[in-house]
């Protein structure tokens, strides 16, 4: 067991190193940040001086080595765009993203599972058909179109909810939360819904197909034969057995939610890490991009690690093979 965990940890470190190296070599293609950092009057000498000061003329592996050795010490440098330390910026922006991801994950799970069970049981009902066909919207329309559509419906036409931003924030130490005020909840609904739609659709379809499969199995037939109530068959015996793959998928997709939040946050001006990343790309703000990509890689690696470890506890076969 210990050997298995150690091996997985070693692999995670390798993945992190690879991701950071690849992302770093990509920064050569985003352009020259210096041009954004100075006005058009700046002289050529001045631009050269700044490039040297930032070490942008060094070969890519030297820049990478410098980045890694600073990152190990927890230093990510200063954002070229807003001129503040990158670690402070990420720490400031992270609560917004995590809260958004949490709410949308809850929406995806609750609505997805309920609708999945329903459509799995009432396969041919008109409501099931409606749910299934509208759920296609969630996978087929791009996030920004869904977001803009929701804004025009709920903010511009009906005026029920704010169109953008994160209002009603309360500070709890360094963590700024929008869960404690009505305004906060009003502003998180639309972006969370937008972000959740894709996952929701996936959960719904997964639960539905698992339900369909489980309902055909022998033990459900036996349960019926024993005269158990429909309710207890559906929700206790059947649903329980469909959840294993669902939880795995959601676990992996938490990372996906954080990555997808880039677009949602931009549409709703949600002040999280995704919006910060987009603005950094536009500006060629290398320190922010480097730190953010490493952070996302870290999230993926950690989530995968946890999922793998959970497998070991759930499925003894892996434990044995791992020896």
């Amino acid at each position, binding site marked *: 067991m210990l050997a298995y965990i150690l091996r997985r940890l070693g692999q995670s470190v390798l993945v992190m190193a690879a991701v950071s190296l690849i992302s770093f070599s990509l920064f050569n293609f985003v*352009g020259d940040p210096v041009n954004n*950092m100075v*006005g058009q*009057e700046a002289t050529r000498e001045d631009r050269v001086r700044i490039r040297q000061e930032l070490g942008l003329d060094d070969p890519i592996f030297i820049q990478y080595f410098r980045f890694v050795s600073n990152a190990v010490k927890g230093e990510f440098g*200063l954002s070229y765009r*807003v001129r503040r330390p990158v670690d402070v910026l990420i720490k400031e922006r992270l609560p917004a993203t995590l809260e958004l991801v949490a709410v949308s994950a809850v929406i995806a799970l609750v609505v997805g599972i309920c609708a999945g069970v329903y459509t799995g049981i009432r396969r041919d009902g008109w409501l099931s058909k409606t749910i299934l066909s509208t759920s296609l919207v969630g996978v087929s329309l791009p996030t920004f179109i869904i977001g803009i559509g929701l*804004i025009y419906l709920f903010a511009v036409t009906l005026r029920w909810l704010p169109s953008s931003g994160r209002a009603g924030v309360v500070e709890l130490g360094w963590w700024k939360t929008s869960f404690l005020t009505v305004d906060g909840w009003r502003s998180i609904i639309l972006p969370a819904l937008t972000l959740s739609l894709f996952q929701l659709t996936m959960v719904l379809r997964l639960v539905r197909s698992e339900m369909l499969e489980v309902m055909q199995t022998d033990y459900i037939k036996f349960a019926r034969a024993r005269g158990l109530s429909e309710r207890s068959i559906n929700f206790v015996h059947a649903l329980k057995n469909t959840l294993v793959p669902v939880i795995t998928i959601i676990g992996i997709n938490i990372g996906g939610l954080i990555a997808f939040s880039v677009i949602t946050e931009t*549409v709703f001006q949600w002040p999280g890490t995704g919006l910060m990343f987009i603005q950094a790309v*536009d500006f060629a703000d290398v320190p922010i991009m480097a730190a953010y990509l490493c952070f996302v890689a870290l999230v993926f690696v950690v989530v995968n690690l946890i999922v793998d470890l959970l497998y070991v506890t759930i499925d003894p076969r892996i434990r044995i093979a791992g020896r």
Partner: protein
Amino acid sequence: MTNRKLLVASAVALALSSGQVLAENVLRWTSQGDALTLDPHSQNEAPTIAMNGMMYESLVTRDSEMTLMPELAESWESNGNTWTFKLRQGVKFHGGEDFTAEDVVFSFDRARHEASDYKEQIKSVTNINVVDDHTIELITEEPNPILPNQLTSLFIVDSGWAEANDVVNPQNFAGGEENYATRNANGTGPFKLVSRAPDEETTMEANPDWWGKGEFPGNIDRLEYRPIANAATRVAALLSDEVDFVLDPPLQDLKRIEGADGLKTTTVPQVRTIFFGMDAGVEELRTSDVKGKNPFADVKVREAMNLAIDRKAIQRVVMEGLSFPAGMITSPGVLGNNPEQDAEIPFDPERAKELLAEAGYADGFSVRLDCPNNRYNNDEKICQAAVAMLAKVGVKVSLDAIPKSQHFPKIQNRETDFYMLGWGVPTLDSHYVFQYLLDAEGSWNAAGYNNSKVNEITTAIASEIDADKRTMMIDEAWTEVRNDMPYIPIHHQVIAWGMSEKVDAPIASDDAFRPRYAVMK
């Protein structure tokens, strides 16, 4: 039922009246990009200057009509190499410190520091003399007729405040630490900073002790700024009454805003001209099938390229009417622009073909056009239209449209044959255009333009104080440029603002929002 209606009505009335009791004029506004820093000497970028200009002041400023106005200086005059500025008396910084000549000297020194992005604007100043507490002299090496024009975004900070907060010099990247001035401000201006969360929200309130109180029409008590990066969301925020003013609504949404109840738009020609540059200065083009010579070195080819562009069609189809076809690369409002020179270059593809044939390119030639896709209004679409127009006269253009961070270094490093560029003129004087785009040594002259007469005039107008003579020289240089055609002028951009009908904010051709002139009903 009637009772309930009555209840609702009285509740609404109560809400309305309580709103009137608190009658504070709060202006909520938005734009795409926040100021990058509040440090007034750290970043020379238009939105940053506009935001800082609400809290900080310079010696000389411009009003919404772009007229030079006294700000911290009450008057100024030049005599040979010396400009004397009489400073306004009794002015206090937001922190309560007195404004004196010492602060001006300190601010100029700060702006001349290596890490400052403003040192180029005042490089002509060699010395600053303090005559008394409220008089200073700026000494220049040569007479500088346009020095006041160059000072409009050179903001004055308090020396004591800067020393106390360790911000004597602008931000330096090597340090890796945030500078106090990045998120704090202490100016003399009409608005005081209340809170600053970069990229989220910035609030300011009117400065009750401002020297200009009562002299300006503005009646805003509080400014709430929230940047919204996405254009459609920005417009939605205006439509849903969450903001009162949008600085940069996308041009295609203007009709929508105009059509909504209680909203209006205003437009004004911007001081920014969009044009293409052709590198005539290299032996052989990098991206052309013509080898051993450079087609752009021949003025006939450059003229043909100019005649092949249908500027009216670009205005009508690409810009939806929101542009002014141009004949020169500087806009109305800049000293040196005149209607004759700025007359649109005619669209004449037949003549263009003849000229190409005369130059020996009857079958045309190929070249790559480098174009930004996130910098100017419809930049990529303009380039696409130009590619189609040039194809009709036989010039085969391949288009490379890329983000600005990749595009501009190509121009800077002279790695492009044929490129799009836009040029604004903060000093409103042609010298700024000649210095950077037309002088052989100009840092943005990627056209390789080198005309000895233009070079001479560029140097001469920097120090010519006889206004009439100077204007004539500028005219003469522009005539040379019109004949040589180093660039292909397309159009002058248009600025559009969208706002609630409750707000009256005079639009300005430098796209800066000046709340001291904004009135709320």
